[in-house]
């Protein structure tokens, strides 16, 4: 069990920031999470005591900085049960990690007519890089549709995967909260010889992650959604795949040697880390992972399941037919993300009214416009919870929605 009061004290913004003399009710962690004090301190302390370039200079300080940076890689590998820390590549964010896959692996292995299978609940980050490849070389994109309750419709999976070279899918929808059967999908992809690419951006911060149990090939996720800093994302991949892939970006650090005639690449992971990487951010990320390990990801998931149940029940009981919450009702297969339509109010107006009581939610298409089309809406209001939220936050959301009714005179 998590003690939310104790957890919240670790987050300066949640513990101390007030707007109009009231605390902030942060329900936008699907967007980005708040940062605990120890992450902020770790980054500051590193810059005050240990900051230096990595992998370049031979003085002792540079060695310490390199060790600190590589510590981030080890921490991330532990968190997702990767066989080797060298399989963890640091990128700018999860979007860059997915672009790396589409560009480095895709450009090498896909040609006109090849099939990439996506799902209708993907974030733009796992759609557009593949569409860029489709424009560039005429690959075909197929879509796994949705059931009425917002789960993947796998009834025609065999047909969709027939002849596919890639299955790229989210492990948790950023709009519906849906948790697709990741292991099953990876195995279905492998059965037809396709690559299994997982967008685990929403999944890793909220669940116990085991990339080996999934038997995924490539997994993208980000630091800033799991209490770490912005500016650093991760791609984990099986070493033999990463080894065989050409580099994505060229520059310093990623080479073995450069001559007037050409270059050879450094071994993985350096091969995919051109230029000075996010050094300070890797240090902050290490502190974030240690924080999550202390809490225990199983406890985080359990807390969020209970909170998700409470939120679904509270919102449905208080607003009945006036609210439509998208996604599955079964918390076994959904995380703490609630996209909803409230009466006939526009999400912009809903979030504006909620902001009056410091309830922070996202209004819009959530970078998933194709999914909006499937749902038959233009946009939704989305509340998303994390390890620092509790039932009082859900109550504040519900109270805020009552306020919207008053203002718009409905």
């Amino acid at each position, binding site marked *: 069990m998590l003690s939310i009061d104790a957890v919240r004290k670790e987050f300066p913004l949640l513990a101390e920031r007030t707007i109009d003399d009231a605390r902030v009710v942060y329900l936008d962690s699907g967007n980005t999470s708040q940062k605990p004090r120890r992450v902020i301190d770790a980054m500051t302390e590193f810059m005050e005591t240990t900051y230096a370039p990595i992998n370049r200079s031979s003085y002792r300080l540079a060695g310490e900085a390199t060790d600190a940076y590589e510590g981030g890689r080890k921490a991330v590998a532990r968190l997702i049960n990767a066989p080797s820390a060298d399989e963890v590549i640091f990128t700018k964010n999860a979007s860059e990690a997915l672009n790396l896959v589409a560009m480095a692996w895709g450009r090498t292995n896909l040609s006109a007519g090849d099939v990439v299978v996506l799902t209708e609940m993907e974030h733009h980050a796992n759609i557009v890089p593949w569409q860029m490849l489709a424009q560039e070389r005429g690959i075909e994109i197929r879509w796994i549709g949705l059931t009425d309750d917002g789960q993947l419709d796998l009834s025609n999976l065999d047909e969709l995967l027939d002849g596919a070279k890639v299955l790229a899918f989210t492990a948790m929808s950023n709009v519906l909260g849906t948790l697709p059967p990741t292991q099953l999908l990876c195995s279905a992809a492998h059965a037809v010889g396709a690559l299994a690419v997982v967008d685990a951006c929403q999944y890793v911060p909220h669940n116990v992650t085991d990339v080996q149990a999934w038997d995924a090939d490539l997994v993208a996720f980000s630091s800033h959604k799991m209490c770490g800093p912005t500016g650093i994302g991760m791609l984990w991949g099986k070493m033999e795949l990463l080894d065989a892939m050409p580099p994505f970006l060229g520059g310093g650090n990623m080479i073995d040697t450069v001559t007037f005639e050409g270059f050879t690449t450094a071994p993985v992971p350096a091969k995919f880390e051109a230029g000075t990487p996010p050094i300070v951010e890797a240090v902050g990320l290490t502190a974030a992972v240690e924080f999550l390990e202390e809490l225990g990801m199983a406890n985080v998931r359990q807390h969020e399941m209970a909170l998700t149940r409470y939120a679904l029940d509270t919102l449905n009981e208080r607003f009945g037919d006036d609210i439509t919450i998208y996604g599955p009702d079964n918390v076994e297969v959904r995380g703490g993300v609630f996209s909803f339509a409230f009466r006939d109010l*526009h999400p912009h107006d809903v979030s*504006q009214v909620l902001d009056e009581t410091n309830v922070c939610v996202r209004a819009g298409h959530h970078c998933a416009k194709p999914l909006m089309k499937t749902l038959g809406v*233009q946009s939704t209001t989305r509340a998303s919870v994390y390890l620092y939220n509790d039932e009082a936050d859900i109550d504040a959301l519900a109270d805020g929605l009552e306020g919207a009714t008053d203002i*718009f*005179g409905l």
Partner: protein
Amino acid sequence: MSGLEDLYREIILDHYRTPRNRGELDTPPATKVDGHNPLCGDEISVYLMVEDAENGDDAIVTDIKIGGQGCSISQSSASMMTNAVIGKRVGDVRAVSRKFKSLMGIENVDLQAGDDEVDLEDLEALQGVVKFPVRIKCAVLGWNTLSSALDEALDPAE
């Protein structure tokens, strides 16, 4: 909730609940331009009829209709916009547009002589939006789309 009352004034809510000049016009003869707000996904369509387009600024906006979906601010702003431009000279419509954008605090509005005299009437009610910078793009979505529609109506070749 003083800030919100400033944003959601009664006249704005009235235009939101009962939008004026909603619908479509046949194209041609009307011009249709779609506008998007990429951040929130709002979409608006402006159908514009301009008579004697060859007269440039002296041509007359004879009809306008609004389609699409959006929040209370973008919808009410577009609704009020239709009332403000029907029957007006194109040159005067552009002046109202400049004055309105300047009310919204939009930078780089090239105000011209005489714009000060423009009466924004109901549109003045939207000045509360300025306190909510995120919503300014909602308020000007219809106007930006109208500007494109005017350009297209006056110079269809472009």
